[in-house]
């Protein structure tokens, strides 16, 4: 059973990662910065529970806040560029964050061991869950409470005028600004919400793996974040969830029996999925 709980934990965290890219993608922006916000959230929550002795819930709040703040701050300069330039700019940001943590040391002595981030060695012993005696099932439920909250939030956005404004910007920026929509405000706000969601996801990730290092937040993570909403489609948040389940449960776990052939099939199946459903599992509504 623990295997399935563990898988559900991964799916929950990756759903948060995917949703953080989903809302940015609604405005037509392709961002590879989500892994950076995820990393910031992971280190923030980890340091607060391990070094400062906080409870995890307020630590996750701090993760959301730092993720949102950094997303907002990089949103202004980054969103001035478009298309491929934005991809490169956000990629550079994500790599910058990763390299920051590669060099980041902040350790304090706890008894006879030292705890805290240690550069390339990573940040070990993020032991909030085992120290508090949480079972795998409880951790899974805890993670899913946040994943469902994020899904509910974005679902509500989608139903509100704000969601329509996001989509209007995504469809046609020229027309959107001509009907009075403030492009900068809309794009930066989407980036900020995405940063908060990725921050929470990162905080949860740090605690269920108990060990994070800079390679946990590389370009592959950023690519996955972006791939989920694209493979899942942008009609609503469930597309992203479906894509996470497809990738994590079916492609990664389900095909394990194939051994080394898995990676080959993995790529082929994603290509196949995109060919069969070009606008995602739950694509945007299309011409009748």
């Amino acid at each position, binding site marked *: 059973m623990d295997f399935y709980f563990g898988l559900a934990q991964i799916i929950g965290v990756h759903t948060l990662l995917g949703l953080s890219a989903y809302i940015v993608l609604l405005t037509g922006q392709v961002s590879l910065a989500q892994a950076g916000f995820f990393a910031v959230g992971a280190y923030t929550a980890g340091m607060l529970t391990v070094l400062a002795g906080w409870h995890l819930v307020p630590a996750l709040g701090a993760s959301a806040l730092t993720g949102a703040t950094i997303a907002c701050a990089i949103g202004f300069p980054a969103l001035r560029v478009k298309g491929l330039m934005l991809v490169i700019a956000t990629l550079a940001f994500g790599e910058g964050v990763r390299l920051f943590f590669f060099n980041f040391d902040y350790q304090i002595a706890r008894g006879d061991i030292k705890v805290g981030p240690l550069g390339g060695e990573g940040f070990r012993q993020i032991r909030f869950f085992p120290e508090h005696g949480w079972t795998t099932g409880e951790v899974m439920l805890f993670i899913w409470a946040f994943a469902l909250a994020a899904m509910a939030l974005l679902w509500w956005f989608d139903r509100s005028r704000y969601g329509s404004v996001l989509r209007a910007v995504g469809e*046609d920026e020229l*027309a*959107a600004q*001509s009907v009075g929509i403030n492009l900068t405000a809309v794009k930066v706000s989407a980036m900020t919400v995405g940063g908060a969601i990725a921050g929470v996801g990162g905080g949860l990730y740090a605690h269920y793996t108990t060990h994070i290092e800079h390679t946990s937040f590389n370009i592959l993570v950023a690519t996955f974040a972006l791939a989920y909403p694209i493979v899942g489609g942008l009609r609503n948040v469930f597309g992203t969830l479906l894509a996470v389940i497809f990738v994590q449960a079916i492609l990664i776990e389900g095909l394990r029996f194939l051994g080394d052939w898995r990676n080959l099939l993995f790529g082929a199946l994603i290509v196949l999925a995109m060919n069969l459903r070009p606008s995602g599992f739950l694509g945007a509504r299309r011409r009748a």
Partner: protein
Amino acid sequence: MLELQALSRHFGGVKAVDGLDLKVAEGQIFGLIGPNGSGKSTTVNVITGLLPPTLGRIVFRGRDLASLPTHLRLRAGIARTFQNIRLFGQMSVWQNLWVAQNSAEDQARQGFFARWLGGQAGVRQEISQLLEFSGLAHKQDELAANLAFGEQRRLELARAMAAKPKLLLLDEPAAGMNSEEIGQLRERILKLRDGGVTILLVEHVMELVMGVTDRIAVLNFGQKIAEGTPAEIQAHPAVRKAYLGGDQP
């Protein structure tokens, strides 16, 4: 209402608009005509801020617009339609109008708390009126991309009106329409004017321009070659030359 002072927009060596002076009075329907490539659409894009002017000033209700970005020009009261229809195709007709309610008063009303305090009723009622006005009430849940061409044009006009503009810039609204549709468009334009909207009509279709405008300016190669009432313009030799070809006067 709107005044262009020596407005120029150059693209490299091409003077798309070159020293244009124009005065549109409140309540007028002002026609802007000219052959293809004479700078009409560029003028609209400069007025709405999509293109910065190379030289010159745009004054709207006594205020220089130079420093205002496009979305604030809309809130100041200038709305437009596009020559090539630019709807939000994957959104419903109703949503297209919803996101376009961005007038200064709507900014207050669409605010987070205002919406919870029951501001939605007025919003819905206004959208219903716009749908009624454009004859699209029965299509409100249809995707904009699925509408017929004429319906898309009507929706775009309604979307521009959703911001309650004081000045409406129509960029070739009759392009591709048949006679009957042009007749309906004329009715709508007159109705809007009677409702207090000033209109700058950029158009090729003489049937519409001559029948509806109070005053017309003619552009050729970015410069104004004539201005006057429709009757004066029809009789103007330079205009006939520009449209029919021939030597420069």
